[in-house]
């Protein structure tokens, strides 16, 4: 493993973690769209 790889691997892992965290709410939209409305009707409630 050369010097460049040692920098790239952690950056890649960290970058992908952030990317996946960033789209979690969008995944939530997709998952909500395939579930019955009664299950998600409480969203926004107290």
């Amino acid at each position, binding site marked *: 493993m050369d010097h460049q790889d040692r920098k790239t691997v952690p950056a890649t892992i960290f970058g992908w973690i952030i990317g996946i965290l960033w789209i979690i709410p969008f995944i939530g939209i997709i998952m909500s769209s395939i579930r019955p409305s009664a299950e998600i009707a409480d*969203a926004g409630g107290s």
Partner: protein
Amino acid sequence: MKKQWRHSTLWFIAPALLPVILFLVFPVISGLYISFFDNSGTFVGLENYTATLTDARVINLKQIPGYPPYGALIHNLVWVLFHLPLTIILGLGFALLLKRTMGMTVVRTMIFLGMVVPMVVGGILVRFLFSKNSGLIPHLFKALDIQGLNVNWIAHPQTALVALIATSVWLWVGYAMVVYIAGLTTIPTVFYDVAAIEGSSRTQTLRWITLPMLKNSTGVIVLMTIIWELKLFDLVYASTGGGPGNSTNVMALEMYLTAFKFNDPGKGMAIAVILTLMTLIPISFSVRQTLNPQSES
């Protein structure tokens, strides 16, 4: 000859000029005119403006340093105060990080996705994300055993504005990242080569090469972000509608509510004029910079 040139020029610009006059200049002047009249059509001078600026819904300094509502105008300023630095720091951080990430195009697209989503959808997402029953964020704090934040964020004045600002950052940071990525590609690699030969650390390289060379990109991001924060409407309207207890209200929403819900178009237009003047401040800096690019350097 000169007169003929002017005549033909007018005909050429007329197709573009007419819609601008009809749909932009006329409504602006009309709005300004309405702002000097009350509901019965009586001229009241600056009364709508003084009523707006003394209204607790617009400026409510008594609540500071407590929790919101601080008033719509102060909420806009709070938005700028927190949203702007977070956008710049995260945008620059992501741009620098993703420079050396494998599969960076995919990750950039993931982060930029927020910009593609309509703000109304963003507003609905806030309701889902911060709901106590089904929301990710309260469940996260529950897992961390922080029960004080395991609540329905948008139902409490203490947390609603924070939830909206956080969502706004999440949606908007993709723009800052893309502008910074474009800016980073314009920096000649020879600067970094020289820095490496001179034994410069990564922090020094960032401080003395990257950041100064990204000055123009930062300027664009600051301007666009401030304008976006000041004219913010749909995110708040779709998520909280300005509540609870007016604690997330912003100027654009207050303008809408005053003009169309409280049926006071004069005061609504006064709020619109104040909001326009606020937005013109950063725009004037941008126009000056565009017209005279040497003035900043």
